[in-house]
């Protein structure tokens, strides 16, 4: 285990050293830190560029997932006015998720009709299609939404393994929120799907 955190992810060197100074007891550890810092500039910037690309890709994928979910909420709300009270808060949360991930893009498409021409492939390859097909029965419609939330949450939990630290934290939170939505929609998560990798 190296003494320095992974370069792309860590805080600026100065603040890290300052942090180490204030909290790290033994001077030996500090000295060791000092020796490892200066010598790997090139590799660091290459790593940083790579990390930035990874982050961008993961963010965009997650934002797309949130927009897909949003479309499902819109379609379900349109088909079942009776579910409005139940779904509106969850839909509002999903909008916030999309915004947290995507910024302006998410806000622009928030109306729900955007991006209709583009065939957004999700990992199941059938995202857009069943977003349009809302079950006629309220209960079934809730279950379908809950299932979509649960699946998205699982995909996010899988994706966070490769994410830089701050994005991983956000994805973990979004995955947890998705599991909560699935629970609130009646598609309860089962324990035991925990540790599959």
């Amino acid at each position, binding site marked *: *285990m*190296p*003494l320095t*955190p992974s370069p792309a992810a860590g805080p600026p060197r100065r603040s890290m050293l300052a942090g*180490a100074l204030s*909290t*790290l007891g033994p001077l030996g550890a500090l000295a060791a830190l000092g020796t490892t810092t200066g010598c790997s500039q090139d590799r660091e910037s290459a790593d940083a560029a790579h990390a930035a690309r990874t982050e961008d890709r993961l963010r965009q994928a997650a934002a797309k997932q949130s927009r897909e979910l949003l479309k499902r909420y819109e379609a379900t709300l349109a088909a079942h006015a009776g579910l409005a009270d139940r779904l509106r*808060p969850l839909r509002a*949360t999903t909008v*916030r*998720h999309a915004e*947290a991930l995507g910024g302006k893009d998410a806000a622009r498409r928030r109306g729900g009709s955007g991006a209709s021409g583009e065939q957004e492939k999700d990992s199941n390859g059938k995202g857009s299609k069943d977003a349009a097909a809302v079950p006629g029965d309220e209960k079934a419609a809730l279950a379908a939404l809950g299932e979509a939330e649960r699946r998205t*949450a699982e995909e996010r*939990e899988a994706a*966070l*393994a490769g994410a830089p*630290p*701050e994005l*991983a*934290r*956000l*994805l*973990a*939170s*979004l*995955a*947890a*929120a998705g*599991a*909560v*939505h699935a*629970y*609130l929609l009646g598609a309860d*998560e089962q*324990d035991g799907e*925990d*540790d599959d*990798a």
Partner: protein
Amino acid sequence: MKKLVDAVQTALAAEHATVYGYGVVGGRIDKAQQDEARRAHDSHRARRDSLRREARDLGAEPEAAAAAYALPFAVPDSAAAVRLAAELEDRLAGAYADLVRASEGARRREAAGALREAAVRSARWKGSGVAFPGLTERSGAGGATPSGSPADGGTSGPL
């Protein structure tokens, strides 16, 4: 490394507080919900134990539990006990979110799973969720209050 150890220790301290808190919850909550409280209590003890092992694996002396914790509000009845249980889970979620950030690989997956469990349990108790479980900086109105990160572990700490 240092950050990872700190995050593990903070999560461990939070689990200590949660285990203590569920002791209080169990003493006040209605019979109908006692099983659920007991299951939560057991699962937090298991998480606490595994965090202890992790701290040791990382070469640290595991954070000890405080002798007592100041409850965030009085818990005279079952309704308050349910509120406390939700509050415990919300605070814990914050510690696990930070552990996700500080860790990698299997440990990160584990932390994400613990975050999810805390969020879902909180929603079970409350009947509703928050938009960003564990992200106190985004919690806004109605979210969990930021915990006073009891990392220093005296004899008594805030929950």
